[in-house]
């Protein structure tokens, strides 16, 4: 957990409003666990006031890859930066995905929930785990990272309009993925709920909560734990998460 001005090495438009950026710096070397995130400060000192959480998509030595979609002011300001500029980066933050040691893992990602699963796929494959990935997009045009995933995983793509791969949502692809020993999922809450219901096994999900501090101090990002309580009745997405076991928190 360090704060460093990382230098932008490259920036590439990979889909409408979606960009891939490679950043370089010492602190990247400590970004070891997939599912963790970085918290980025853009704009001027006092504006906008909050950092923006973005998942670690890949790490190679001191180079960090992130993929972001322009949603509002923060991501737009990030995207105004050019190669050679720096980005004030706090990270790695949170608890990432626990790694399965063997067998088969199913990775299920939707939209900008997909990036953290790439780093996960890479590490799982390195451990000898068989990886299958279901990647959901709205339409064929929106697709990104699918090629990169093929290095580590058997890839199934779904598109809502059927313009590529299976027509429908990620859950529509699940029937043809079984059996698997664990699943890992990241995407919008409504997708996670559907995945948790449809999945054949227990697994891990990564939540997108609105954050303040990103380090556990402001209590902005709490999630209720499901009964029975195992101690505290709430967890913080930024510190205890963003990855949780299925059944751990109320979605």
């Amino acid at each position, binding site marked *: *957990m360090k*704060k460093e001005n990382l230098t932008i090495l490259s920036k590439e438009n990979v889909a409408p409003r979606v960009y891939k950026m490679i950043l370089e710096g010492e602190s990247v070397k400590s970004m070891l666990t997939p599912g963790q995130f970085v918290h980025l*400060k853009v704009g001027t*000192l*006092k*504006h*906008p*006031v*909050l*950092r923006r959480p973005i998942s670690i998509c890949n790490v190679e030595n001191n180079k960090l890859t992130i993929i972001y979609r322009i949603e509002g002011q923060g991501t737009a300001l990030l995207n105004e930066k050019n190669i050679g500029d720096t980005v004030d980066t*706090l990270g790695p933050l949170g608890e990432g995905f626990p790694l399965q040691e063997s067998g088969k893992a199913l990775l299920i990602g939707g939209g900008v929930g997909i990036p953290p699963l790439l780093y996960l796929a890479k590490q799982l494959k390195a451990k000898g785990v068989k990886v299958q990935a279901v990647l959901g997009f709205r339409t064929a045009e929106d697709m990104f990272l699918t090629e990169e995933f093929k290095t580590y995983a058997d890839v199934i793509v779904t598109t809502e309009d059927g313009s590529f791969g299976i027509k429908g949502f990620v859950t529509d692809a699940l029937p043809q993925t079984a059996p698997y020993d664990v699943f890992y999922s990241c995407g919008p809450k409504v997708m996670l709920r559907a995945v948790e219901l449809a999945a054949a096994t227990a697994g891990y999900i990564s939540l997108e*909560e*609105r*954050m*303040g*501090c*990103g*380090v*556990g*101090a*402001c*209590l*902005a*990002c*709490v*999630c209720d734990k499901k009964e029975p309580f195992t101690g505290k*009745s*709430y967890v913080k997405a930024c*510190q205890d998460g963003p990855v949780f076991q299925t059944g751990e928190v109320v979605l």
Partner: protein
Amino acid sequence: MSRLNIELPGLSMKNPVMPASGCFAFGQEYAKFYDLSKLGAIAIKAATPETRAGNKTPRVAETESGMLNAIGLQNPGIDHIMENELPWLEQYDVPLVANVAGKIKEDYIEVAEKISEAPNVHALELNISCPNVKEGGIQFGSDPQMASELTKEVKKVSKVPVYVKLSPNTADIVSMAKAVEAAGADGLSMINTLVGMKIDIRTGKPILANKTGGLSGPAIKPVAVRMIHEVSQQVSIPIIGMGGIYTAEDVVEFFMAGASAVAVGTANFSDPFACPAIIDDLEELLSEMGISHISELTGRSWKQWQTSLS
């Protein structure tokens, strides 16, 4: 750092900078970034008699140069805090300001009495201005009579000096300040957040689950500076100033307005090193300005000075 050390009722501070209540929890998270002994003091998260779960999420929303929060006084309750959080903080050489909240007078009295016993709690901050809980004390914060009575009762039981944290959501902050001063308050904290709302136009609903939230950050700084400027001319107890402080220059502005110490809230979120950075910069800024001690700056915007600046 002889330019920066200050003495306020109950508080011997190495420097006038403390993290603001609710923006630093009980210190554990920021202790991973730097040595908390560097701080002038720490205003810890509000304590209530019972465990509070707080409001539903979303609890924060960003606004232009500010943010809304509706945490809802989530805290593990006074007993847990006394047993776990405060003892952990004893390893640091830093006085604590315990933020005290409640629903009814008896809640404040209970918390004040207990927490003021803790060896490292050197002052209380009566939170009569939390806008995010229907019964979070805001009723005390908008009525000088009630605020005055509460202050008197708490003063009776507290072993340490009592600061009262004022709400900016009022037409007349001076009356409130005078009322609590007359009731025996040892100091004032100002300001708490302004009540605001942000609506998500895609859903048509307020973003915060609580609908309204407290506005903090640079956006409210002009309001804080104005209120401190008004109040400091009318009371003789010291003011801990807060509201959008991000830099050493901001600290100087608050002192000139009339503050005797400051608290830094929202800035911690954009930079976890905000407090130590401000402390270092402040030392340097005062030296550049030729100010031998920061206390010379208190009220400079309205006091007559022998020697003028620049």
